[in-house]
Structures are given as C-alpha cells and as structure tokens.
C-alpha cells in the first residue's frame, strides 16, 4: 500500500533503466535531497553541522571511493588514508600556487593527482590478491605518510609542518578558511558528494562497473571473455583514488582547517574500510549508511549519558562506548552480514509488498 505500483508502466527503455524506477522512490529521493539542501542548513546548529554532518559527508565520499575498489572490483585496499593525504597535500600545493583558481577545481585536480598515485600503487594488484593485497597497500599508506612528513616542499616549508586551508571564495562567499561558515562548507561538501554519488551509480551500472564485478567474482573467467584485468583493475584504483583524493582535500579544507600527517594515518584507512564493510560491499547507498554508522554512533554513545541524565566519569564513559561500539558491529554483522544496505533493501522489498507478506 505504501508503494502503490499499480499504474506505473514503463514504455521506453530509458525509463525502465532509470536509477529510481518506482515513482515513490523518486519522490523520496527528491524530498531527501531538498531537505538536505534547504532544511538542514536552516535548522541544524553549528555543532551538528561541524561535528557530525560535514565529517559524515566527507567520509561518505571516501567510503564511496573505497567501495568502488573493494566492493565492486574486489581489491581490498588499506591505503585510503594515504590517498586522502595525497589529495589534501596536492590541493594545498595547487591552491597556494594558483590562489585565484576556483577551490573546487583545485579539489578535482588534487583528485587527479591522487588517481595517478593510486594507479602506481595499484600495479601490484595484478599479481597479488585478497588479503595479501590489503597488506601490500599498507605499504602505500606508510610510505606516503612518511613522504609528506619528510619532504618539506609539500607544506611549503612551513615551520609548523602542517598544512592550513587558506581563505578562498566561491561566488563571493567564503568557502574555506577560518571565516567560512559551517552551512556554506556543508553545502559544498553535500554538492560534491551528491555529484560523485551520481557518477558512481552510473559507473557501476554501466560497462565499467560490470567489468569490475566480473573481475571481483571470477577474474580468470572474466579475462577469458575479454575483460582486460590490467586496465580494469588500474581503472578501479584510479577512480577510487580520485574519490578518496577529493575526500582528503575536503577533509582538510572543509572540515579540519589544518592538518598534520597524523590526521591521515592508518586509523583513517581502517575507519573507511569499516564503513564500507558495515554499510555493504558493492552498494552506493551502503557507503552512505556505513559512514553514517561509523560517524554518528560514537557521537550518540558519547552523548547518551547526558541524555539519560547519568553522570559518569569520562574515562568510564569512553570505555563503555568502545565496548558498545564493538558489540554493535558484531551484532549488526550477525543480523545482516551483507551490511546495512542489504537491511535497507530487505526492508524496501517488504514495504513494496506491504501489507501482504509475499
């Protein structure tokens, strides 16, 4: 009854192949987008924007990139932090060399730099598979972080050894730098992640995505039917690193404001991988759900004692938070091993038939 599909016919191939074939889905997606663009900046306070939504959007982009590589192409990568660092430092160098350049263009160019580095470190994937590849990408992670620590050119020889987001305007409004307000930064992040989500969705439904999935499922069979493993895998690394690079640039410019290499260390790589696995491998929506879970659940758990009126010492609170977080991860995996995206899909299928059971 909720999804009244009676009367919805498809008379063209285009409408049949639409991303949201059901009218109700289109409406809901449209409403969500409108709410996100208009309602949220008006309603949310600065804490919500700065500490919850902006990191969520940035991590969602990084998770999207990693999902393309790990979920669709099957190459487990733990170098996400390193690629994000490449994006951040490249964006910093580009925008300090060309201050007049639009900052979003700088982000995209930084993404290209990250893509090149990603291709370089993806070359071993032709020989190494599975968890071995994951650990090999850690080499990329550690090396890149060491490089940015060592070579002072990347930070423009700053005495502090950190990169700072310089004040930049777009259409007259301050977008990065200390003066940029949280709603503006939120909208830029939202715009970028929505754009890239659309691109990703189309990629995975097209020839490229299918070749990735073929490599993931049976790479020898794929090779036999004509999918070139070299090109496919390197393309996956390139596009995934592009996304991660843009996310890294956003991480410094739109969220932190200034960063040292420790902000991109191994924990970030693990965190993004967790988001992808919890959200659902091989699902664009899953990247968003996973990012929401990993970003918001710790914050919820931190604030829970306040909400419940309990006064706990902070150390105990943090320890319980960790235990509950770990427990929740295991519980969710037991309930739905294929991630939150699959939970959502099952729910949607049930809703489509509701009130009938099948």
């Amino acid at each position: 009854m909720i999804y009244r599909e009676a009367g919805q016919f498809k008379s063209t191939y285009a409408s049949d192949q639409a991303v949201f074939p059901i009218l109700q889905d289109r409406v809901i997606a449209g409403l969500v987008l409108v709410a996100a663009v208009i309602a949220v900046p008006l309603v949310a306070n600065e804490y919500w924007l700065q500490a919850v939504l902006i990191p969520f959007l940035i991590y969602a982009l990084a998770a999207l990139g990693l999902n393309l590589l790990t979920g669709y192409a099957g190459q487990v990568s733990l170098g996400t932090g390193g690629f994000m660092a490449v994006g951040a430092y490249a964006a910093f160098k580009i925008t300090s060399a060309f201050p007049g350049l639009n900052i979003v263009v700088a982000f995209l160019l930084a993404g290209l730099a990250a893509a090149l580095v990603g291709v370089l470190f993806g070359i071993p994937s032709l020989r190494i598979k599975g968890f071995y590849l994951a650990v090999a990408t850690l080499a990329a992670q550690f090396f890149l972080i060491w490089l940015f620590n060592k070579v002072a050119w990347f930070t423009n020889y700053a005495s502090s050894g950190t990169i700072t987001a310089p004040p930049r305007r777009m259409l007259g409004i301050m977008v990065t730098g200390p003066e940029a307000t949280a709603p503006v930064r939120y909208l830029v992040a939202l715009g970028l992640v929505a754009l890239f989500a659309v691109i990703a969705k189309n990629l995975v439904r097209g020839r490229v995505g299918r070749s990735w999935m073929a490599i993931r499922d049976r790479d020898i069979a794929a090779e036999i039917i004509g999918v070139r493993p070299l090109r496919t895998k390197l393309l996956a690394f390139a596009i995934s690193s592009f996304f991660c690079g843009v996310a890294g640039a956003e991480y410094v410019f739109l969220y932190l404001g200034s960063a040292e290499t420790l902000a991109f260390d191994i924990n970030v790589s693990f965190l993004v991988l967790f988001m992808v696995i919890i959200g659902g491998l091989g699902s664009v929506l899953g990247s968003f759900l996973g990012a929401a879970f990993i970003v918001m659940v710790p914050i919820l758990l931190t604030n829970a004692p306040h909400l419940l009126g309990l006064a706990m010492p902070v150390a105990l609170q943090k320890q319980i938070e960790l235990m509950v977080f770990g427990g929740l991860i295991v519980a969710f995996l037991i309930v739905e091993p294929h991630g939150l995206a699959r939970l959502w899909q099952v729910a949607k299928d049930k809703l489509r038939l509701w009130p009938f059971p099948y």
Partner: protein
Amino acid sequence: MTLRRVMIALLVAAVVAVPLAGTVSAQAKEMFVPSLVYRTGPYAPSGTPFANGMWDYLTMLNERDGGINGVKLVVEECETQYDTKQGVECYERLKGKSGGAVAFNPLSTGITYQLIPKAGVDKIVVHSMGYGMTAASDGRWFPWVFTFPTTYWSQASSVVRYIGQQEGGLEKLKGKKIVHIYHNSPYGKEANPTLEELAQKYGFELTLLAVDHPGQEQKATWLQVRRLNPQWVYMSGWGVMNQVAVKEAAAINFPMDHFIGNWWSASEADVIPAGDGAKGYKGATFHAPGTAFKVHADIVKFVYDKGKNIGPKDKIGEALYNRGVVNAMYMTEVFRTAMAKFGNKPLTTEQVRWGYEHLNLTEARLDQVGLKGFTHAVKVTCEDHEGSGPVLIQQWDGKKWNVVSEWIPPMKEVVRPKLEAAAIEEGKKLGYTARDCSKEN
C-alpha cells in the same frame, strides 16, 4: 529473528534520538570551564595525571574559596583520546554550553592546530601551554592564542644552555656531539631549526634521529646512538616512544645523566618500565615536581578528604599532575586579573582574553597563591604571548623527580626573530593582518 528485530528497533531509535544533543542553560555567578582530557587511549598514562591536576586545583578553589571572587567554576571534562576528530567534536559541543566556555586548553598539538583558526572566529581563547604552534606566540598575529610560559624553541635553547653549563661554558660545546631524538611528527620536529642554528653558532655536532610513530621499536635508533657515541642526547618524544627510549638507553648503558627529555618526555609514566635503569635520567620542566607546596596541602584537605577527587591520592605531585595544577593556576590567575578590571562577575570571552594578555604573575603573587618556588614569574604582553620563560632541569632518582638546576633562561636573541618570521608566515596563510600593539591598552 528476534535479534534482527531488536537491532532494527535500536537503529530506528538511534536515528530518532540523535538530534537530542541538548544544551544546558547558563546559571548566574558561574563560569564554564571545559577540560579536554585524554584519560583513555594510547596517551592515557600522560593525560590522566594532567587531567587530575587540573580538576583538583579548580575543585579546590570552588571548595575552599567558593570559586574566584564569588564566581563558581563549572568544570566539565570531555574525552578526546588525543584524537583530533574527537577534540573538534568536544570543542564544538562545549563552546556554547552553559553560557559559553571561557577558554580552551586543547592539551594536544594536533587539536591546537585545529582550534587556532577557530579561536579568532568564535572569539574564545586557546591556551596551548608549552605546546601547540610556537609561531602563535606572537600576539600581534594571533591575539586569541597564548603559549606561555615558554615554547619548544625556547626550551631547546635553554637545554643547550644547560648542556653548556654542564660542560663548563658554552664555548666548550665546540666539537661535542649532541643527538636529538624526535618523534616523527610536527611536534617532534619543532626543536630542530633552533637546534641547527645553535649548532652553527656554538660549533657542536648535531645529529637528528627521527623515530617513527608510535616508536615501539627503537633498536635501530639506539644502535646509531651507540655508534655515534654522543656526549648528550635530547629527546622530543611522546607516549610509548618515551618509555622505550629510556629503556633502550639503559640497555646500551648510555650515561643517563646525559640524556635529557623535553617536558613531555619526563614524567613518571616514562621511567617506570625501565625500573632502576632510568636512574639519573633528566628532563626539562617549567614547574617543580613534588607536593611540598601549600596548594597541595589544600588540595588534600578540600578535595581528597571530601571525596571530590577523580584520581588516586598517591599520584598527587607527579610531574604531569603538577603541570595540570599549573595550567589551572594560570587560568584562574587570568580570571582574577580580568575581574580586577571588569568586576567580580562571570566574564565574557573578550574580557578573559584581556586578562590573558595582561597577566602579570609575580613571585609575591605566587607566594600568596600557595605555590612559592613552584614556577617562575610570568608576564604576558600584547606582542609576547610566550612570556619567554625559563626552564628547570629535573632528574629521576629512582623514586621521584628532583630539581637539579637553577632557572635557565632561553636564548631570546636566537628564538624571537625566528618566531616573528614564522608568525608572519602562519598568520598570512590564514589571511590575518597584524595588529598594532601600541594602539591598544
């Protein structure tokens, strides 16, 4: 099946409940002091005593004096685990709470770098006491950031001066070998430019050895130290790197009294694993260790005896505990300075900033507070948010830290010009303009 339903119900409840991150309204005659701490996580052994010191001093003031001039201090701790992301989250959550936070002590160089740009926009003071961005000590570029009583660059110069004293004069340093072992991060590298300049000036041979984070395995570094056989080793370490370094130094039979750690590498947690091998290890500090001060007696009386403490009683007087005390003391003296001008009522952040910039802590005042001889006098001015304070050297005797030197002044003539150049660079990066101190009172 039931588990599934439970999890889905939890998920829905969470989505509904999250928007309720509420705020508490302000009370009259109170000032809200947030305390960013790390009592858990990899740096908890260092963060816990600091947090306890801060908490104890502020609680003691509340209990003994009813606050500061009748204004009570509401202290709330927020756990950051020394993680930048969580630090930002704590800052955003607490900055507007209960009428607004009056100042922030980030307690982490990484978090400080995030908060420095925000301090000017949100107009809240960031006091990065002896850590953070050294360049921010130039108050003309960073009016909202304070680094007193001293910074890493000044500390490095003081340590070199101390080494000179031990060798019989700074001229005697010529030809000697000094090794700087540092944590491979911007924090660890802070002292390097100053040391390099001093090496050129005084003719000693400086070797810089980086230790990768987290520093659990330092065999290669200490083998190199053994080969170089330097006269002195200076360390800018943090966390487990300190403990392993002290152990490795003891294991290669390096003379521990020629091994000086900076003020974040010389606490009780750093020497415990090495046991007896750590005897003689030296460290820099800007306050005395121990409990021989009236403030500590008051803390025991008004906080521990009343059961309002968080930490254990036997840890009072540890190096990092006292650091928390001195941080809290600076903050409360600033409040008093500001109240002397603006009246005995809850202060605004602008007034607090004025207080920070006009802090003049004299020896007489320290005596009144109950900390005679605990730390050095500090005077903050518009240009000088560092106070350019001197440094003490303390030594571990196996049971406790003892002060083994006089106050060693930094080499201002070396440090200040570099600092001003760095401030211009960092300030311009953020799009700031320098203010003119002569135009302000």
